């Protein structure tokens, strides 16, 4: 509370406030244990980029295995040692790769990396605050995140291998080291890492919501907030509601593993002997896991949609169509996301009537999602569209959101889910709708706000190359995967050699892997562009995309406290692009209506 008051006081134009800090900065306080939200956002981003490359590299390894299961690849042995003996990927390590790839991508890249980076960067800058409500919590949020990444990374090096029961870690498999080697020390580390991650996520989330509610600058009413901020706020609330449930699930699993409790275990006979666990329910874990797990996919996609809303509006030079409908649909998506988790469990033996209820709620999610897509397309209609790399990625996001969202209608329909549940059809669906879509949103955000973070522009031409290679290869990877699923191939199979009916699909698998390798090359272009531009990129002008939002009014040469003088006052909503009767095609939020008599309209707010 003290911090909030202090920051409120600093609102009242303490111009010298920031200068005090500048002098006290050492390397440690400026770059490592910093409480400045702008630096913390960079920490999140760079950590996430490293984790993303790690997880992407893993996917390359298992894609090689799936395409050419009989070919010996000697480099595997030099890279993985015992897990790549004689150039063959070990089946147990294959499962570990799949597990850790999923965990890193879902939690560390698309939750920590996406929300952590952009909520931290944009919330204070776009609402007009000097920093987050609590700089200390913010710093802790990053360091818990870093700790959890580190523990996950260390788990790759334990002798029994990292966790390998799938990213959903269903017990009893994840609870019993007898069942799979990865459920030994690797699983303990996975759980510890996840508990750190949840702490980080909660600290961050509480901070984001508090900041948005309390620290908006003068004139910044809730309906003048950019859609990015709405998306981050709704996401943070969703995280606060659902992550504690994962915490509980993980904790109980830890108890079952370590202290011999029986929350999830019962009636098990393994390794020639019955276990003493009686009375638990593996289904209980699934309920607890998916109570987080489903909101989690919206925690991943909503910030991406928020970033895309802003990027599409700015680069169409046109207000986002249906601002309030966009907020409403995000709210509805978030609400519904909390009551749809059962659609992951249609065929677990859950009561079929309960299944029907989840079908209804699940298909309802399609309605606000459709509204969002239509609104994006309507925003493009009669725009004056500038195709920056960020805009291209935002358009890619919409394309993937459509493609992946539509197959969700089939998966959400329990009668149809029976036959495609846990097949590659599911893998294709969620990789497109929450993987590709969210990553495209994140990349759009990186290209768009890179100048805001580093004061320099990323190279556009490399951005175009990155976009085109990625767009083509992502569709090339995931579109054919639907067919493999419809042919009945289960996911998480080390090889499809066990059933003769799958032999025809080898060609499709090779095609997918070729595109996967291409997408890997494309990301190297990005990595080069990203790190090169941090140091050598072209200096950015103050407002490179001619945006209305407040972050472009603060000097790009980062000052602690964001604005050297008084915090700007807001007079209008953020989407006055292409307004008739005004000379420029944009009117920043700081311009009062009295300065634009020619363009004011009765429905302005």
């Amino acid at each position, binding site marked *: 509370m003290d911090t909030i008051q202090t920051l409120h006081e600093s609102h009242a134009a303490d111009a010298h406030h920031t200068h005090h800090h500048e002098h006290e900065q050492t390397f440690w306080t400026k770059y490592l244990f910093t409480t400045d939200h702008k630096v913390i956002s960079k920490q999140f981003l760079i950590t996430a980029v490293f984790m993303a490359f790690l997880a992407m590299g893993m996917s390359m390894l298992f894609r090689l295995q799936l395409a050419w299961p009989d070919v010996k690849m000697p480099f595997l042995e030099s890279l993985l040692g015992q897990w790549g003996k004689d150039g063959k990927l070990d089946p147990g390590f294959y499962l570990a790769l799949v597990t850790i790839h999923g965990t890193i991508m879902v939690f560390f890249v698309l939750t920590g990396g996406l929300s952590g980076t952009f909520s931290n960067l944009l919330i204070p800058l776009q609402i007009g605050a000097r920093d987050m409500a609590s700089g200390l919590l913010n710093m802790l949020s990053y360091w818990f995140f870093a700790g959890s990444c580190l523990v996950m990374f260390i788990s790759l090096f334990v002798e029994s291998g990292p966790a390998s029961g799938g990213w959903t870690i269903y017990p009893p*498999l994840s609870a019993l080291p007898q069942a799979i080697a990865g459920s030994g020390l690797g699983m303990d580390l996975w759980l510890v890492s996840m508990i750190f991650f949840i702490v980080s996520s909660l600290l961050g989330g509480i901070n984001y919501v508090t900041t948005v509610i309390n620290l908006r600058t003068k004139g910044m009413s809730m309906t003048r907030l950019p859609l990015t901020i709405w998306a981050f706020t709704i996401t943070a609330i969703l995280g606060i509601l659902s992550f504690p449930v994962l915490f509980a699930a993980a904790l109980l699993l830890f108890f079952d593993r370590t202290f011999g409790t029986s929350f999830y275990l019962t009636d098990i006979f393994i390794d020639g002997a019955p276990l003493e666990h009686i009375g638990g329910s593996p289904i209980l874990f699934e309920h607890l896991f998916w109570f987080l797990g489903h909101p989690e996919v919206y925690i991943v996609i909503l910030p991406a949609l928020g970033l895309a809303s802003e990027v599409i509006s700015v680069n169409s030079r046109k207000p986002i169509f249906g601002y309030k409908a966009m907020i409403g649909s995000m709210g509805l998506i978030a609400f519904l996301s909390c009551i749809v988790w059962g659609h992951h469990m249609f065929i677990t033996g859950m009561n079929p009537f309960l299944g029907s209820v989840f079908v209804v709620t699940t298909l309802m999610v399609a309605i606000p999602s459709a509204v969002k897509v239509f609104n994006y397309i309507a925003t493009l209609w009669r725009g004056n569209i500038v195709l920056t790399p960020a805009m291209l990625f935002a358009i890619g996001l919409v394309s993937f959101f459509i493609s992946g969202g539509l197959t969700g209608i089939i998966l959400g329909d*329990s009668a149809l889910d029976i036959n495609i549940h846990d097949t590659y059809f599911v893998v294709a669906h969620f990789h497109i709708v929450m993987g590709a879509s969210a990553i495209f949103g994140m990349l759009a955000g990186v290209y768009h706000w890179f100048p805001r973070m580093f004061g320099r522009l990323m190279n556009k031409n490399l951005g175009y190359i990155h976009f085109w290679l990625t767009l083509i290869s992502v569709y090339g990877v995931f579109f054919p995967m639907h067919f493999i699923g419809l042919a009945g191939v289960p996911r998480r199979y080390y090889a499809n050699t066990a059933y003769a009916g799958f032999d025809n699909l080898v060609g499709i698998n090779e095609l997918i892997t070729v595109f996967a390798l291409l997408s890997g090359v494309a990301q190297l272009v990005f990595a080069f562009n990203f790190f090169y531009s941090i140091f050598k990129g072209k200096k950015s002008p103050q407002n490179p995309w001619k945006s209305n939002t407040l972050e472009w009014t603060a000097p790009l040469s980062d000052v602690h406290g964001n604005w050297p003088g008084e915090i700007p006052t807001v007079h209008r909503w953020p989407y006055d692009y292409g307004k008739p009767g005004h000379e420029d095609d944009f009117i920043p939020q700081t311009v009062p209506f009295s300065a634009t008599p020619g363009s004011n309209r009765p429905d302005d707010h």
Partner: protein
Amino acid sequence: MTLLYILGIVFFIVVMVRIMNVINLSEELSGETPDEQIARETPINAMGLLIFLGIGLILFFVTIKAYMPYMLPEAASVHGKQTDFLLDVNFIIIIAVFVLTQIALFWFVWKYKYRKGEKAYYYPHNNTIEVIWTVAPTIVLAGLLITGLKSWNEITDNQRKDGMNVQIYSKQFNFVTRYSGKDNTLGQSYFMNISDDNPLGVKKEAAAMDDKIANELHLVVNKPVMLHMNSQDVIHSMYLPHFRTQMNAVPGMTTTFYFVPTITTSEMRRKLNNPKFDYVLLCNKICGVSHYLMNMKVVVESPAEFKVWLAGQKNVFAADSTLASGSATTQPLTIN
């Protein structure tokens, strides 16, 4: 070797940096304003998106046609025919929506690409349009929902008693089947009873005496079957793709699935013109290192063939063993 890799990477970075410097320098020298640059580059990318849309849509349909023969053959169960029909209806609708929205998305980007000095059309909202595109998907979804739930309720109706009761018992990493015999009642099983002689832990009771165990799943064509799934260690999933049937096997509980197979193995072989074809039961829930090897052959045959096959299978308990049981089997066994 490692050194070579490192040298390669360093060389790549150095070359890239050089190229970047040249590009940056030439851009500075060209004297193009940012607006001019946008006006030059945007149409190229917009055209790219249009071409991507065109080629993409062509490939979309070409791929569907090319890969169709690799998909699962026609459903070999009564409910499977129904879900396949529903799946087709769903696909037609979503493909139509997919094509239309993707065309709108990419076409608008091309049509309304940047024109220097012009302004976009200021059009912040229109409530009528919002209502229309909220209600329209709602109606379509309601239709899909109602038809979907109707078949879901039929498929999962557990009250039917006319099915042949068969247990599918799963453990790392194989399936075992148990047939209920003449009384069509499966003897109860409990994990504490598991021993070398009694791998499924069946209780020695009257109902179990005629039960038989096998390493294949044999079904009678057009005769309903009620599968009872159990697992002794981790969660497995019983996936019968050709019958559009799937249900998890969870330790500590019994799950069931009722269906009617309609096509015998030999008939399916004729239809597919593939004498080697066999139905299969796959494990479809990650269950350990050899998950991908966990499956079982499935045979659908005539009643006569089935009778012969079943007669050749082993009884759970030898015929001369008595019902009187030791202490291990007298404890309460009603976990199901």
